[in-house]
């Protein structure tokens, strides 16, 4: 069911149809791209959460995280108690010329101090300037979007589940007490 030249006509139809459709060009510097959540743009640090456990620096496959810290002794609150020590973060830097954006540091952080940010405009003219220090990493924290909503059929978040179980237990105990006093 084809007449000679139907393929040629089909080709013409394809180009004409494409012309009437919306173009796919991203006009990047004029229009910012719409990036999906969890885009691997840059790694941001919430340094308030960091305990200098060094897990991220040790797990990093290409050793691009630099952490310096010192110990501080807190005076004992109670005269009978021992003085406490804690780690204070002096330097947290990520060398983005080495980083391969694997995200292992973010996965491994037990205190939620590292996050993916979709920010991607941090090109530099010198490779050395790609090592970003803690203040810059903290600034990027402001660009981290809220996590996307869970799927409708997903398991509920652990902290909500725990809170709900505790509340249910309390309610059950209160009901049992009320039943026993009658």
């Amino acid at each position, binding site marked *: 069911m084809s007449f000679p030249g139907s393929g*040629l006509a089909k*080709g*013409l139809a*394809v*180009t*004409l149809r*494409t*012309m009437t*459709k919306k*173009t*796919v*060009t991203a*006009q990047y510097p004029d229009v910012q791209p719409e990036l999906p959540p969890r885009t691997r743009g840059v790694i941001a640090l919430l340094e308030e959460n960091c305990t200098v456990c060094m897990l991220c620096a040790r797990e990093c496959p290409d050793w691009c995280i630099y952490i310096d810290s010192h110990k501080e002794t807190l005076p004992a609150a109670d005269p009978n108690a021992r003085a406490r020590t804690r780690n204070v973060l002096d330097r947290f830097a990520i060398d983005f010329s080495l980083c391969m954006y694997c995200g292992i540091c973010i996965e491994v952080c037990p205190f939620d101090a590292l996050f993916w940010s979709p920010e991607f405009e941090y090109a530099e003219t010198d490779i050395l300037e790609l090592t970003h220090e803690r203040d810059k990493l903290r600034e990027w924290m402001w660009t981290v979007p809220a996590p996307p909503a869970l799927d409708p059929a997903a398991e509920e978040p652990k902290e909500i589940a725990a809170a709900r179980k505790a509340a249910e237990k309390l309610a059950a105990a209160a009901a049992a007490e009320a039943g026993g006093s009658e």
Partner: protein
Amino acid sequence: MNLLDTLLRCAAALVVFLTFPLIIGQTEHKVMAHMQGRLGPMYAGGFHGWAQLVADGVKFAQKEDIVPAGADRRVFQLAPAVSLLPYLIVLLAIPVGPDGFVGQAVDAGLFFVLAVMGVGVIGKLMAGWASANKFSLLGGLRTAAQLMSYELPMVLAAASVAMAAGTLSLPGILDAFEWYWIPWQAIGAFVFFTAGLAELQRPPFDMPVADSEIIFGAYTEYTGLRFAFFLLSEYAGILVVSALTAVLFLGGWHGPLPDDLGWLWTILKTFALAFVVIWLRVTYPRLREDQLMRFAWTVLIPLALVQLALTGVIKVAIS
């Protein structure tokens, strides 16, 4: 016709010659981009890159004009002009509207136009030969071969129209035009337009400048303004071939509107055909050199002869 009138007509043809090819070029940028899902130029001039070709022209003017050491200097430098000017001269003879709305009504207009258009190809041959470059020479020879095989069906198709009208004058042909000429001369229109495309070396017939095989054919050694002239001659060629097809086969100024607006019809038909030229370029890949030759000799020339016979039979039957 006094001197002032002549000067005015020449100036008008020059203005058309300098602006319309640029409009076609800009249309090609945009149409090609959108047919490929892109936007095309967006910055030059502010609004959707309307001044892109002006910017290109400025760029070309700034570039160094290089003549290769082994080149035949005079011929090399003259070639772009030989390639470009014939189209300007042809434009003078193309009727735009009725009642003398034409640069210069030539009695043997059809003959004149086809002859002068053939000269443009000589410019490309000169470029190919004078460049002292094997790719240029190959491109030039391909141009020559293409001209040889496509000029014949083009002339045969044009001859069919001349037979139908009984005159060689372009305004005369349009005066004799009737609506039923369009189906009657449809085969001729196809042959003429296709052969015109091949003469302009437009894709899918652009083997003389096939960049994957011979860099840029006859234009390989050209830079700066001379190169820009070759490009301009290509777009002027689109204008001329589209206008000629519109005048010979689509009835030129004839249309539903009153005759005063005939020039609008000519321009509209010309640009519609120029759009088709661009459309074909975007859609089809380049033919191989032997396919090109086979297409000319085994398809276009027999078709043109069939059209000629058909025209003759119907012409005799009518009269």
